[in-house]
């Protein structure tokens, strides 16, 4: 066997005399190169866990005290094995037997390397992170190296003659078994040469394959019929790793393009013990069944039988190793069960590209730490795979890939495909599957503070805003009003008849209940006094008469209005009528005509003027108060207002000696008081109003804005009494009025008392209803 050097860049095996890797052209002796060591890539690219491992491994002063217990135990076991010569594998392929075991065992001998073998370039750099990345406690092997598949490392770490019985028996069986090579057609172009050289004419599976299924099935207690076994055998042999209790994917790391040197090929050709189990796993298929899978499966199943912890790596020493190995009836497990020597169809149909994807599986967990999903998913998939037809093998084969099965991140595939590996044995290659689990890439999202820094005042505002918003959406329960009960027709008819009868009696009788008024309100006295003394201010007092009366209210104030107009006419007053009610101009004319009938000397057409209707109500009044000639253009009879006013000697509001307002509405009276009164503050403003507007105008009387006021029928009677108009009292009307008022007051009192009694004694009401 010629000396070989493994490329630190790509992991390929090269002849030791080569300066550069014949595959990747990387310098095989970095010390001699001035260029950077490929493994010394930027630490930025390293994941955290690798950085930590790097730090650990770069400590040259690492002592035994710092080593973990299990590693110390292994070391002690290695020391006690009295190996005096370096362990050299008989073949590189043996390294495939049990890479896990190989790693474990190699730990014990790493310290016993010979100096001669330390000339390997890789071992010179103890701090080189590259091997550390693979195993974190990577031994300094001779060929070492095994960072990648370390094909030449003897897994047992013992001389062949000191091999345990089970391994020796295994070898013996392999030697004795026919070299039935599985005609692997996969990856012919890129498959390593030694795969390509496998004789394809060999039919039937190797014996290890024939033994594994039965062993696995038996160990697991699976009761599979032979017929079923025949169907499942090809798959079983390939997926027995998945059927293992742990479902542990193979942790074998194989350089994808490792070329087997010629001597190795020769070795292969000369070594009948080289069985497919040592080279079966395609480089990409870490999930493919491999010999170490079978072995580990067998070991694990044996551990289960021996009530050993199924997972975890036991502290290793030779005695224990032998002891638990003795419990294994490995020979039986390997020889039992006959597997038809047919090549599994899926192996023949495996697409080339799937096999060529180098997969570097770095087991992030030891067996005992496997997550549930990782431990269960292969088993499930294997069950599905058994039911799948052969023609669909590529699909389930794709599905069997653990990384894809558990990490459905198709969106990142393109990213991974275009990524170039920057470190490790696959450095420089594109499309390499990530060596680190996807979960390790996950970075914890930054935690942002969710608590706002708000003051109490701001909280109060927020609460207020929330309450406002919630109040908008919260339906307000309206107070359900009691349905207004319609008035009973009997009650309505009774009240109507009663009232009409009493009023008619009053009208017919003409006998008031009480004597005629002899006490008069102050505003009525002022009113009468002002009206009857206007002549003292001017021989022909000019009085502006605003008639703001609806026709229906005129009868109430007709008597008072006519009497007042008569008094004014007797003083030879110049009366100017104006209204903001359309029909009130006619009413004003009617009132004037009635009054003029009582004053024959008064010429209505000459001494009075009816300006008619003033549109715009308050606006019209404002305009009229400011400039009467402009506000009113024509009189009621069609004359020019300005000319008519000029004839009366009136050019503006201040030319009037008094304003007499006849109204039935408090609002209209207020419009006059607001728009006209401020411009007429020096002269008297008198109001004849209906009884309904009197309370409304009382404040204006108290404030002096209204100088005198008479209201309603009482005001009419009062004015008549004040002015001593003999016969001016309409006694029939007055008596009916008093009787009607008393009747209504009595009815209201009775109704109120009845309602109050019903409220006080509701029970009696309900009782009576019952």
């Amino acid at each position: 066997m010629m000396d070989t050097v493994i490329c630190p860049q790509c992991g390929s095996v090269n002849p030791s005399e080569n300066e550069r890797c014949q595959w990747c052209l990387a310098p095989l002796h970095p010390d001699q190169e001035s260029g950077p060591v490929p493994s010394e890539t930027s630490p930025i690219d390293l994941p955290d866990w690798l950085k930590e491992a790097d730090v650990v491994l770069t400590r040259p002063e690492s002592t035994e005290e710092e080593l973990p217990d299990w590693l110390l135990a292994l070391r002690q076991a290695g020391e006690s094995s009295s190996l005096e010569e370096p362990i050299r594998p008989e073949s590189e392929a043996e390294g495939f037997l049990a890479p896990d075991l190989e790693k474990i065992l190699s730990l014990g001998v790493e310290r016993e390397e010979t100096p001669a073998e330390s000339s390997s370039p890789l071992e010179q750099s103890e701090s080189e992170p590259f091997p550390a990345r693979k195993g974190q406690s990577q031994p300094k092997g001779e060929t070492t190296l095994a960072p990648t598949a370390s094909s030449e490392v003897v897994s047992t770490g013992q001389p062949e003659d000191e091999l345990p019985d089970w391994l020796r028996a295994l070898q013996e069986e392999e030697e004795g078994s026919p070299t039935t090579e599985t005609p692997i057609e996969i990856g012919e172009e890129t498959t390593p040469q030694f795969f390509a050289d496998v004789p394809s004419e060999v039919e039937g599976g190797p014996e290890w394959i024939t033994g594994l299924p039965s062993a696995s099935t038996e160990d697991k207690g699976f009761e599979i019929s032979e017929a079923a076994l025949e169907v499942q055998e090809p798959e079983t042999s390939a997926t027995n790793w998945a059927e293992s209790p742990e479902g542990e994917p193979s942790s074998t790391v194989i350089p994808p393009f490792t070329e087997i040197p010629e001597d190795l090929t020769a070795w292969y050709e000369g070594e009948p013990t080289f069985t497919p189990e040592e080279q079966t796993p395609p480089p990409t298929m870490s999930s493919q069944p491999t010999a170490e899978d079978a072995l580990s499966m067998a070991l694990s199943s044996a551990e289960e039988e021996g009530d050993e912890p199924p997972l975890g790596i036991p502290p290793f020493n030779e005695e224990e190793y032998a002891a638990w190995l003795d419990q294994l009836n490995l020979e039986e497990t390997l020889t039992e069960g006959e597997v038809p020597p047919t090549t599994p169809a899926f192996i023949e149909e495996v697409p080339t590209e799937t096999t060529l994807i180098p997969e570097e599986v770095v087991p992030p967990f030891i067996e005992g730490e496997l997550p549930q999903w990782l431990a269960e998913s292969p088993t499930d998939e294997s069950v599905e795979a058994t039911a799948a037809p052969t023609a669909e093998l590529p699909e389930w084969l794709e599905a069997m890939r653990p990384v894809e099965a558990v990490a459905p991140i198709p969106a990142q595939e393109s990213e991974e495909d275009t990524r170039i590996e920057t470190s490790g044995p696959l450095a420089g290659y594109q499309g390499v599957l990530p060596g680190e689990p996807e979960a390790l890439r996950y970075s914890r999202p930054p935690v942002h503070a969710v608590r706002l820094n708000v003051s109490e005042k701001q909280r109060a505002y927020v609460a207020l805003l929330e309450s406002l918003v919630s109040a908008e959406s919260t339906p307000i329960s309206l107070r359900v009003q009691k349905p207004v009960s319609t008035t009973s027709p009997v009650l309505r008819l009774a009240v109507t008849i009663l009232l009409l009868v009493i009023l008619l009696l009053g009208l017919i009788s003409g006998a008031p209940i009480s004597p005629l008024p002899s006490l008069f309100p102050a505003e009525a006295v002022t009113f009468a006094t002002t009206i009857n003394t206007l002549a003292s201010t001017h021989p022909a007092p000019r009085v502006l008469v605003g008639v703001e009366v609806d026709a229906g209210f005129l009868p109430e104030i007709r008597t008072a209005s006519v009497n007042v107009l008569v008094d004014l006419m007797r003083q030879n007053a110049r009366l100017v009528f104006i209204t903001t009610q359309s029909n009130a101009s006619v009413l004003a004319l009617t009132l004037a005509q009635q009054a003029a009938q009582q004053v024959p000397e008064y010429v209505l057409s000459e001494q009075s003027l009816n300006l008619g209707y003033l549109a715009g109500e308050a606006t019209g009044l404002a305009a009229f108060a400011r400039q009467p000639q402009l506000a009113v253009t024509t009189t009621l009879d069609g004359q020019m207002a300005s000319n008519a006013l000029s004839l009366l000697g009136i050019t503006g509001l201040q030319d009037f000696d008094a304003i007499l307002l006849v109204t039935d509405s408090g609002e209209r009276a207020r419009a006059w008081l607001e728009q006209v009164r401020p411009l007429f503050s020096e002269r008297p403003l008198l109001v004849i109003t209906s009884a309904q507007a009197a309370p409304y105008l009382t404040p204006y009387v108290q404030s002096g804005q209204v100088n005198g006021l008479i209201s309603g029928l009482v005001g009419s009677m009062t004015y008549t009494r004040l002015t001593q108009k003999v016969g001016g009292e309409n006694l029939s009307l007055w008596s009916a009025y008093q009787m009607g008022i008393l009747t209504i007051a009595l009815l209201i009192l009775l109704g109120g008392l009845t309602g109050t009694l019903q409220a006080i004694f509701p029970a009696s009401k309900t009782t009576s209803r019952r």
Partner: protein
Amino acid sequence: MSDALWTLVAFLLTLAVLSYAIGDNPLFRIAIYTFVGVSAGYLAVVLINHILIPKLIAPLSNPNASWGIIVIPWVLSLLLLTRLMPRLSFLGSLPLAFLVGVGAAVIINGALFGTLFGQVRAAGLSFSPLQQKSIGWMGGVILLFGTITTLLYFQFTARRVPGKSISRPPWVEVAAKIGQAFIAITLGAFFAGVIQTSLTVLITRLDFILQFLNTLLP
């Protein structure tokens, strides 16, 4: 003769309307529809005769009138007529805006100088020696107290406290209750005045019926 005829019409219309005391009937409706038609017709006549003709049409024949002053009210009036046409009714917003703007200014002026200043001044004058004769010192106090509490009753703004119901301060609540009592008394007085007015008018109608019936009697 015509007076008697119009008196008969008035008598019939009075009976038709008063028949509503028994219940709704066609006579009542006929009287009401007729009343509305006559009122609208007379209002139109008044508007045309008193406003439109002298203020809009007559200036067109006045050679001394300024055309700029004439055109604007014409344009505004025509725009206002578009209110009758739904598609062009949006054009009527301009003269309405003019009307509302002027009306707002008139109302502000009237409320400020006609009522607010006068009534506030009157509230203070109640305590002046000149007014003591009319209502007295106690009367002034009652007037002032009633006025303030009535105004407080109309204060419906309150501070909203989070988590609590909206409520006015306690002293405002008490004052508002007193103001509510004042308002109830005032509205009672108003209602009494309305009843007096309507009763008087009813009596006059009954008197008219009696007089008409008297004329029928030989």
